[in-house]
């Protein structure tokens, strides 16, 4: 993973990414109308920390129909097993309840991230 310099998330920053849990995953992610990105992450993972501000920025620039959700892997291990998550961060893209793509440990730059999360929906 190519980690570029950034100071990581700020405690005062607005969290634009909602958390999906095993009880809300179906409703929030699988039954969603538009494209959904689920970030399987862990707060202790330094790669997730590096990606966090970029993901927040992406959430800000994405269209309202597109949504990013966070899945906390240490808490939601059943979801991580179901979606075969080997490491964090892993972004899984869903459309109409189906997985249409995934990217593991994306480079934490906005341009790379936007390409990674939008490309699967354009096929």
């Amino acid at each position, binding site marked *: 993973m190519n980690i570029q310099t950034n100071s*990581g998330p700020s*405690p005062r920053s607005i969290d634009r990414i909602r958390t999906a849990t095993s009880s809300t995953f179906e409703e929030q992610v699988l039954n969603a109308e538009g494209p959904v990105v689920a970030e399987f992450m*862990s*707060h*202790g993972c330094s790669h*997730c*920390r590096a990606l966090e501000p970029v993901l927040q920025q992406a959430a800000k620039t994405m269209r309202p129909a597109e949504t990013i959700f966070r899945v906390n892997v240490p808490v939601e291990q059943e979801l991580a097993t179901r979606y075969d998550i080997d490491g*964090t961060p892993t972004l899984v893209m869903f459309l109409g309840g189906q997985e249409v793509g995934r990217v593991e440990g994306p480079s934490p730059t906005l341009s790379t991230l936007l390409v990674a999360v939008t490309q699967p929906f354009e096929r």
Partner: protein
Amino acid sequence: MTPKTEAERASPILLFNDECGVCHLVAKWVAKMAATPSSAAKFIERPIGDDPAELRSLNESLDIWDAYETIHLLMPDGSMKTGGEACAEVLRRLPRTQWLARSLSIDIWGLRPFQELLNFGYLVLSDVRPAFGCESCGTPPVWLGPIVWARTLKSNSGAA
């Protein structure tokens, strides 16, 4: 959300990453050093966990990402010490390391050279600690790399 217990209100809380081998060892060492019968030093060693809201209940300005990034010592008066300053405070409170902590307070023309050295040492250790084993990302320690590559190659060749 779990409210602070009476003990948590009276003793400093040392937050540590339970998935990091180095952090785990350090927390165990602090607990052992503080456990002498004559010692007045009391710490609560607490894994950071996965619930941002629960952490904020300990201190409103405590951010879970920051807690995982650097060592945090939550003081009973509501203040927080981080990084090298947190290490120094821990050393100051442990009976067997108070002599070392005194050296950290030595002030030469407005500079605390030994504290600066500790701050730098902590930064370096903080950066290299994943190499000694950290399960946070689900990735194995660097030194296990060749074994993991060998396993991956073997399973790939088996699948082909």
